[in-house]
């Protein structure tokens, strides 16, 4: 998985604030947290940074599918076991008669569900890692036997 340092190395390191953040390091953090886009760094689009831009797009490609909370699902690794579905505290709270007791979700307010043998993320905004009051919940990733879900 790509690290903040790796992304930082690929920024222009000008601290020009054109992206709206005080430093390129802050931009790297925001990029990884899905709060900024690569294109928000306008100097990077200049021809002299062509190499860096290309590399940055490459290292960011694997996390392109991440949700607003940074959740990435590697479908090829998922067993569809549903551990994450049943362990997610939001699923438990919103779906007491379904995923809380081990059954398939009965409410549409759950975050994680298993469809066609692999897990899907439905309501990322419900996740405890979303928004300004986010907390570092990791029950879904900690219960996964195959590391099929991760946070970036």
């Amino acid at each position, binding site marked *: 998985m790509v690290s903040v340092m790796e992304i930082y190395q690929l920024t222009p390191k000008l601290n020009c604030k054109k992206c709206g953040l005080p430093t390129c390091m802050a931009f790297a953090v925001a990029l990884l947290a899905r709060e900024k886009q690569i294109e928000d760094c306008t100097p990077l689009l200049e021809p002299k940074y062509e190499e860096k831009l290309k590399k940055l797009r490459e290292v960011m490609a694997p996390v392109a599918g991440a949700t607003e909370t940074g959740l990435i699902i590697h479908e090829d690794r998922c067993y*569809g076991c*549903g*551990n994450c579905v049943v*362990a997610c505290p939001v699923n438990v709270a919103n779906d007491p008669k379904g995923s809380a007791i*081990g*059954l398939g979700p009965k409410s549409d307010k759950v975050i994680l569900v298993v469809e*066609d*043998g692999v897990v899907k993320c439905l309501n990322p905004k419900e996740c405890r890692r979303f928004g300004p009051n986010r907390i570092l919940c990791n029950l879904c990733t900690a*219960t996964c036997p*195959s590391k099929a879900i991760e946070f970036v």
Partner: protein
Amino acid sequence: MAVCTGCSLLCDDIEVSIDGRRIAKTKNLCRKGFGRYRSLTSDRSVPRVDGKQVGIDEAISRAAEMLRDAKRPLLFGWSCSTLEAQRKGIELARKTRAIIDDTSSICQGEIVDMIIRGELPTCTLDDVRNYGDTLIFWGCDPSSSHPRHMSRFSYFPRGEKLQRGHEEDRTAFLIDIRTSPTAKILAGNFIQISPGGDADLIEAMLAVLDGKIPKVRDKKAMISMITTLKKADMGVIFPGLGLAYSLKGRMDRLKALVSRLNETTRYNVIPMVGHYNMRGFNQLLFDETGFINRVSFGDGVDHGPMYSVVEALKSCDLALVVGTDPISSLPAGIAKALARVPMITLDPHRTLTTELSRVVIPTALSGIEAGGSALRMDGVRIEFDPIMKSEYPSDEEVLSKILEEI
């Protein structure tokens, strides 16, 4: 809601939408179960006699003829067919004075036998979910073999008495020889042993229960595990194939451990049966004969190791294989011996066994194209209806026709 017959959990909360004969979308099926549903349209077998494609009725008639002429047929498989088909199979064994055996004789048979005879206490998976606060997975990797075991019943879900689920109310241990995917989830409570080390571990556990110092490397971890085990309100041991193979012939050690634990608190055993209805076959045959497998109907009812598939192959002159692929799953030497016997195979799919069979009869996929019932790994009966029409007959229908024609 559909039922998945992908493993012996028989998950009954499956949602499926179909588009003609195609599975359009499924919910709650694990990858393994999804694979079974998807197999609906891949690699289906075709009726064949001596390598030539024929009509299905012709294949059935030929099978009946061969069974009628055989002196010592072996009827093998059964773990992946419904209770209704298994009942017909046992009837057919009686009528043809055959040897009948299922996959349990090379699998978890010994443990299932002890449970059916009441020598090991057991409970249902629903009890586990509601009350099982201390669990031991032993010689198994549920994440791979029964993907929804831990999420539906054993470790993660909230239960009546266990409202905080795995976070606070449940403890689970894993005893195994390798760092499996399950070991990764239960990292802190994973006890790694060397192959064949299960009996020694049981002795060490018994020693701690007797207040002695165990002869193991990590004495502290062992003592702390036993302290947790003793505090259980309801404990459950889930033995897998690893334990069954390692303790073969010494199952009394498992019995000793369970009864010793039961002096302090309540412990139950549920074997991690693999095929979806192995438990059902064992129960049916037991109800009829007093034995769960390895039965010969030659002269009345006889039972013994010489009637296990492995031994019976040496004396039988015909094999009827239902719902299993012994050529791929048995050890090479035995598979070779089997391949020398004329085989009749009932299977929805093409397998190595159908490839080598004299007669192949394609059948409907149970749970998807055919209904029926089966016993889950804990002995609870689960019924299912077909979710679509099929051009293939069910195992039960084929066996009934064979019975009529003999």
